[in-house]
């Protein structure tokens, strides 16, 4: 089966795997926020990014994620980055510049691109670590837990969670089926790789229609199976999976909040360590 674009869960028993999914979800969101804060100077910003990168590498090491996986996730972004660089060079006309011939290139343009690039890498890395160390089901439970307050304004959170978990459950099944349909259509002469756009679209349609029909069939079967096993979306249910915060989660949460708070404080005060040194 083909790998999904972001990370797939890898079944290692590491510290990161054992952490509570709710904590990891919160941590990822905080890290994604922290990536966007500015410090006193550019040098400070990049020192901070360096620090985050080191943390990312340590986490990846713990979670048995190869650097190659991260590089593979970044690969589709090269084109975008080059495009962004060109736009920046053309648009940004402030600050110091150096010249290639008569053409001015402003340092700000280069740095703007670099900021975006580093932030994207970091965010990709965080999501990679999260998905590699957390089962999709646990993420769903975590999401349900955070959304729980919405039940007070009559949002059917448990139904949403059930829908998400069923979707996750059927992703492998449908991928496998898509693969089978593709082979079946290919054996009838449908060419998925070559040909003009029109032909390609037609090839894809020959895949999507049977896939839809089968998905609908599956969903009616599934609904029947759920109903006879007593599922009532609006009824009361007990839970098999109950999440417990362990000591390590509390400790990790403490460190996370301390780190986040510290960084926020540094950012708000606008302290620039390099100004003292130099």
């Amino acid at each position, binding site marked *: *089966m083909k790998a999904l674009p972001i990370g797939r869960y890898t079944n290692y028993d590491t510290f990161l795997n054992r952490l509570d999914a709710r904590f990891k979800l919160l941590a990822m969101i905080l890290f994604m926020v922290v990536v966007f804060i500015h410090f006193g100077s550019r040098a400070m910003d990049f020192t901070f990014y360096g620090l985050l990168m080191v943390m990312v590498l340590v986490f990846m090491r713990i979670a048995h994620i190869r650097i190659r996986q991260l590089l593979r996730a970044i690969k589709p972004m090269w084109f975008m980055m080059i495009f962004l660089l060109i736009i920046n060079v053309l648009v940004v006309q402030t600050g110091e510049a150096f010249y290639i011939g008569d053409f001015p290139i402003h340092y700000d343009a280069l740095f703007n691109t670099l900021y975006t690039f580093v932030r994207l890498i970091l965010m990709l890395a965080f999501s990679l670590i999260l998905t590699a160390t957390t*089962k*999709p*089901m646990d993420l769903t439970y975590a999401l349900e837990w955070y959304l729980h307050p919405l039940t007070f304004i009559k949002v059917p959170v448990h139904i949403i969670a059930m829908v998400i*978990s*069923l979707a*996750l*459950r059927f992703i*492998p*099944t449908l991928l*496998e089926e898509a693969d089978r349909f593709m082979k079946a259509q290919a054996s009838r002469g449908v060419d998925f790789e070559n040909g003009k756009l029109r032909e390609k679209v037609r090839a894809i349609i020959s895949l999507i229609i049977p896939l839809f029909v089968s998905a609908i*069939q*599956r969903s009616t*079967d*599934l609904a*029947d*199976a*759920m*109903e*006879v*096993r*007593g*599922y*009532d979306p609006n*009824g*009361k*249910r*007990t*839970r*098999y*999976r*109950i999440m417990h915060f362990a000591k390590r989660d509390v400790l990790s949460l403490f460190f996370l909040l301390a780190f986040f708070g510290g960084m926020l404080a540094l950012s708000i005060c606008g302290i620039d360590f390099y100004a003292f040194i130099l």
Partner: protein
Amino acid sequence: MKAIDVQHLWFSYHQEEEEKMILQDLSFSCEQGESIAFIGPNGSGKSTLMKLLVALLEADKGKIFLLDKELKEDTVDFLRQHIGIVFQNPDNQFIGATVRDDIAFGLENRCIPHEEMEDIILKYAKEVGMETFLDKEPASLSGGQKQRVAIAGVLSMHPKILLMDEATAMLDPKGRKEIMALTKKMRSENKDMTILTVTHHMEEALLSDRIIVIYQGKVYMEGTPDEVFSHAEELKAIGLDLPFEKKWKEELKKAGFPIENTMTDEEAIEILCH
């Protein structure tokens, strides 16, 4: 007590078209603890009947009594607690993310306290021989294993009536043998569980106490396996075959040996040896 009593059932998917009645005045009943196999050609209405029994469909006319209670809107929830069904497609009835979660699904619906679930899950996983696969995802299980999980899920609800609608149809011969062996085991361990199986495999039908042949929405024939399979011609007329164990005697009889369908295997072999 009668486990199931179906009286003059009529059903069609499209009420407008009068002639397209899928079930036509179908009646049968069965005692508690009995096992019945339903056989019949494709489209004869077997699955439709099963769906009516678990109230996934509603009959146009006729009555269904389960455990001496009539199946009606206000008894559905109660009666569903005593009836379980295993469907044909192993993938489409696997609800949980793992084997554990799938068995737990029914328990959650029944509001079984969280503390008791673990033991129940383990017990029924053992019952079907899946205790070493508890944390496996459906994608990494074979069809037969998935069906065993489905059976565990149903058994964990202590059904008095168990329906299996071609539960082995999508399995390879090994998977089918596994499920057949499991069915045998369930029957010997739960003597008062009523089991209804729908199948196209005559070997499977042989295992039950009674066979009901469905043809064009009606009961075409009914009796013990021996009785039903002694009517080879009638079965052939509606496109059904005999199981191998019955067929060889039939074929030998045609070839001129003094063998009757009603003989036991030993008697027939005795004659052949002389």
